[in-house]
């Protein structure tokens, strides 16, 4: 499995997980000129931007570590673009991170960080 395929599989698993927890998926891989956001979902009244990070092992650090400050800033920029694009002005927003590490062909560890970072 290539890295790209692994990432795609991770995102599918994350989307399935989010729907199981009662959130509804609005967008997958929404992109603008600032970059791409993996999942946009709605959790009650919050609009949630989800970054999915999949890694085969934690040898190079845990998956969450890959969401560095620069990536957070990029997510904030994409979120702004999305809000402008959809015309949502007074909307509560949240940034989540989902970390996935496969332990077998059909099993994986999943960690969901709600409100993992903010725009300050």
């Amino acid at each position, binding site marked *: 499995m290539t890295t790209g395929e692994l990432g795609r599989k991770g995102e599918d698993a994350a989307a399935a997980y989010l729907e199981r927890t009662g959130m509804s998926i609005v967008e997958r891989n929404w992109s603008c000129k600032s970059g791409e956001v993996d999942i946009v979902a709605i959790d009650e*009244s919050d609009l949630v931007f989800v970054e999915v990070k999949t890694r085969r092992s934690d040898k190079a650090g845990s998956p969450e570590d890959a969401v560095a400050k620069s990536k957070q800033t990029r997510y*904030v920029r994409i979120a702004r673009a999305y809000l402008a694009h959809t015309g949502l002005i007074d*909307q*509560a*927003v949240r940034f989540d991170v989902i970390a996935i590490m496969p332990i077998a062909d059909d099993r994986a560890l999943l960690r969901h960080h709600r409100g993992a970072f903010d725009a300050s």
Partner: protein
Amino acid sequence: MSPQFRASVHTATVRGTTAVDVIVEVDIGNGLPAFIIVGLADAAVLEARDRVRSAIRACGFDFPSARIVVNLAPAPLRKHGTGFDLPIAAAILVATRQVPESVAHHHLVGELSLEGHVRGVPGLLSHALAARSADRDMLVPAEAIDRVHAVAGLNARPIRILADLRAPNQEHVLQKRTSLTAKKHALDLDEVVGHEAAKRALEIAAAGSHNLLLVGPPGSGKTMLARRLGSLLPSLDDSERLEAAVIHDIAGCDSTSILAGERPFRAPHHSSSLAGLVGGGTPPRPGEISLAHHGVLFLDELPEFAPGALQSLRQPLEDGEVTLVRADGRIRYPAQFMLVASANPCPCGFLGDPERRCTCPASSIGRYQNRIGGPLMDRIDIAVRMNRIDPARLLARQDCEGSIHVHDRIGTAREFAFAHGRLATRSLIGNDLLAACKLEASERQLLAAHAKRHHLSGRGVTRLLRVARTIADLARSERVTADAVDEAVGLRITTP
């Protein structure tokens, strides 16, 4: 979160010695989630964000995932310190209706630990005074509540942890603790053998808070004598105690002994920097001279201090306060202290010693003595020479007068001065001073003759008269006699 959530909470920031009221406004709204602090906050205040977030969660509250804007008003005032943690956290909790609204009517200050424990901060006493003058109840960090006992009439309740804000209605009103008795001084004058002239000079200096210089060879007992000054001085009165304690509190120094009435005794090392001595830094901090307010500043080995540091003492010695001028305004720290200094007569220390010969070249003696500088010497009222004591005399046990007797005489002299309408002889000037001395024509002539012979400046004559006035106070004499003038002249003019 669709409706708007707002709250404001009262706190203050310390500027100089007073706490200036600051209002913490919080607005929680929609938009990209963020936690923003505006209003000229320094790095320590900005770090509050991470402590506040952790403390709120650790105490079982929800930290809102929303756009949180904190404004510290008035915006042009520079804010510093970690005391904003508690008011910011409280404002967020009030805005999100997680604690009762009555919390916002209190004066709040304190640093938060990551688990939500509330810690004391420097300047708590100034906050307490500000809260009292605004007639506002104060939530005081429990671990530091002893520090605000001295503020009479303050309505204060301890807060141990952020979660305590849930139930703010249980009233614990603090009563002012009745005045504490000063403990007996560890160092007593009866341990100093001989040095009768120096002891008399110390007594006069202590009675009138005059500046004193002790000159003598190494080991002659200068430091020993100076360190016993604390046992001679009367206790601080209530207002002096509060003023001195406020300065100690701002500097983060322990003020327990001050609150017990003991006068501060500060003995900075001669390597002290100028800012350490007179105050300064960012944010500004009071220096040693302000910590010695209403007490004693002891400068051991005076000529070893940096000349710049010594000369910076001149203005506070005259004005009783130090003014730091900053781009955003002036900051005043009170600095009414009694200066006690010790010096060797020359670099080797034995100039004028009856037994050992001085080995210094003449040029280095002059240079050494000049380090103190004329203008500073002019502000020293009493200079006294101390010689080494004969070892045989030291070893023979003898009873010397104990501190308590000298302490009582000093107290009587101060009461005598007070009874005659003089609060501080050391700051009398012009006609007031002349009126207090009631000099007769013969004494005026005597004084004029001394002034001419010793080339005294106007300030020199004034200072000499003040010392003479104190000598007369010790003798409980309403007028300054010729004897008092002669003794004052003898205490001012010294040959090495």
